[in-house]
């Protein structure tokens, strides 16, 4: 058995919020590693800080203390511009409520992140089309989000997340707003992205069935992170 290569090292991560003069610690001294190609499920009670942790790892929120080293680079040291540039290159985002731009078609939504690359107009279109094909929506390219079901919208969001071919995918309760069948669809898709494309996936979820798909399960409670016994089949 080969020792998997570490992609993300989290060391001493801490974050608290101020509310009405009171300091509320959310994360206290979190340290763990995420291997390249790992499919990690973050679980825990509501309000335990899962989203906060995910946002810090993905570079859209800042911790108070600690390091997050990705591919040898500590992203907590980057300024806003560098961080934005790093995000656009390295991370794909999948949200609970899909967060597509309602006035853009599926294809245009997927093309959006490519505006920050130096691909030509044609290349952008081709990339966006193949990303949509990869999530099985090649027949819905010109549909607006409102014309798609929740599951289809989430698949568009996944296409948008993978179109720039990032190493890391972060997903905050990606099945939280979906019916059982659509949720299964999305989980299978994420599983394929992990196994076939080698994406490193960090997924926050409440859903035990979602957690089943993951390779590694971690539980966050009262600011502390613990590893749960490997889910079945891994």
């Amino acid at each position, binding site marked *: 058995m080969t020792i998997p290569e570490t992609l993300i090292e989290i060391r001493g991560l801490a974050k608290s919020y101020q509310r009405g003069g009171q300091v509320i610690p959310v994360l206290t001294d979190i340290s763990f590693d995420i291997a390249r190609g790992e499919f990690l499920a973050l679980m825990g009670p509501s309000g335990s800080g899962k*989203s*906060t942790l995910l*946002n810090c790892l993905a570079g*859209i*929120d800042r911790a108070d203390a600690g390091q997050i080293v990705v591919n040898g680079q500590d992203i907590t040291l980057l300024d*806003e*511009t560098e961080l*934005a*540039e790093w*995000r*656009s*290159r390295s991370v794909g*985002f999948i*949200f*609970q*409520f899909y*967060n597509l*731009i*309602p*006035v*853009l078609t599926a294809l*245009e939504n997927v*093309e*959006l*992140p490519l*505006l*920050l690359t130096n691909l030509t107009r044609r290349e952008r279109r081709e990339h966006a089309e193949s990303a949509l094909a990869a999530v099985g929506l090649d027949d819905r390219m010109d549909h607006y989000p409102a014309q798609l079901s929740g599951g289809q919208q989430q698949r568009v969001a996944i296409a*948008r997340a993978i179109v720039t071919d990032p190493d890391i995918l972060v997903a*905050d*309760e990606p099945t939280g707003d979906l019916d059982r069948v659509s949720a299964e669809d999305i989980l299978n898709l994420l599983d394929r992205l992990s196994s076939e494309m080698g994406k490193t996936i960090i997924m926050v979820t409440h859903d035990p069935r979602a957690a089943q798909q993951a390779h590694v399960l971690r539980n966050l409670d009262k600011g502390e992170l613990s590893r749960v016994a490997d889910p079945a089949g891994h």
Partner: protein
Amino acid sequence: MLLIRLAIRNAFRHRLRSFLTILGVMVAILAFGLLRTVIDAWYAGVEASSANRLVTRSSVSLMFSLPMAYKDKIRAVPGVTLVCQGNWFGGIYIDEKNFFANFAYEPQTLLDLYPEYVLDDPAQRSDFLRDRKGCLVGAKLAKRFGWKVGDNITLRGTIFPGDWVMTVRAIYRGARSGTDESQLFFHWAYLDETMRVNYPSRAGQVGFYMVGINDPNKAAEISRAVDAQFANSLAETLTETEKAFQMSFVSMSEAIILAIRLVSFVVVLIILAVSANTMAMSARERTGEYAVLKTLGFSARTVALLIAGEALVISLTGAGLGLVLILPCAEAFGTLMTDFFPVFAVSRETIMYGVVAGLAVGILSGIYPAIYAARVRIAVALRKVG
């Protein structure tokens, strides 16, 4: 580009809201332009005046006349090339509401002094000069009453009693767009001879003299020389440039003009406040989308430009429509107000200011939402959406 498409589609996302805002900007720019045109119309007489012409009148008031004998004395002043006696006739055509300016002038010097009154047909010119009961009318006036050359018309005298019958002998058009085409001129001799018969004491009286000079730079000097001739006489004169003379009519209504000018700016300010509010509303509704764009790696500046662009799309669409409508509206308004404003034309400056006002509304109404969008903090904004 996709981002420009996004800004345009965002602008028309709430159909009704965008439509109402665009309508508001359109009406505001239209009102702004029309009010400016009203002011321009007020100054039309001043604008149309020539630096080569002076007006000599009684120093007491325009109501007092001057002796006919002054004509040769004025003519003898160095620098003076032409002198034409004239009277404001104030005649009424059929009904008082048919108001237009009508004067008695010495016809030959009138035509020499006013090269901007163009008579295309030389036959009409000589007919007008020859017929002592002939008159010369502006093209706009002729059109208004359907007059043609050869028509007989009757003016009812107000200052000069009686019914005055005359024949339209010539029609002039203006050499420039600012030239007044709504006036009627007839022979001063007709006026004077009739008065001599009916009211002998009122014969030989001149309302004012139009004075042509050879050098506009010497206007002040020549004016002084003219007035010096008649100092300490029974009828002292006041000579000034035609521009100053016209200005003295406008200055009576300066307060009104100031008020109109003020209103024209207030209209733009109001629509600025309205569209700024609309844009702020739109920006707040899209907080989550701005957070998503930033998450994807778009800079604060790009996100700010997106909403600023949206504000520009709305205000420029409105301003464009307003400016497209201003010409037909000015035309209709001018026809309606032809008694008050013989010249009512939208100037190029007004169009330019309209564009500037539209741009200003777009930029200013976009500033606050742009700053707001640029400052959206991703994690906080996404939490609100989620």
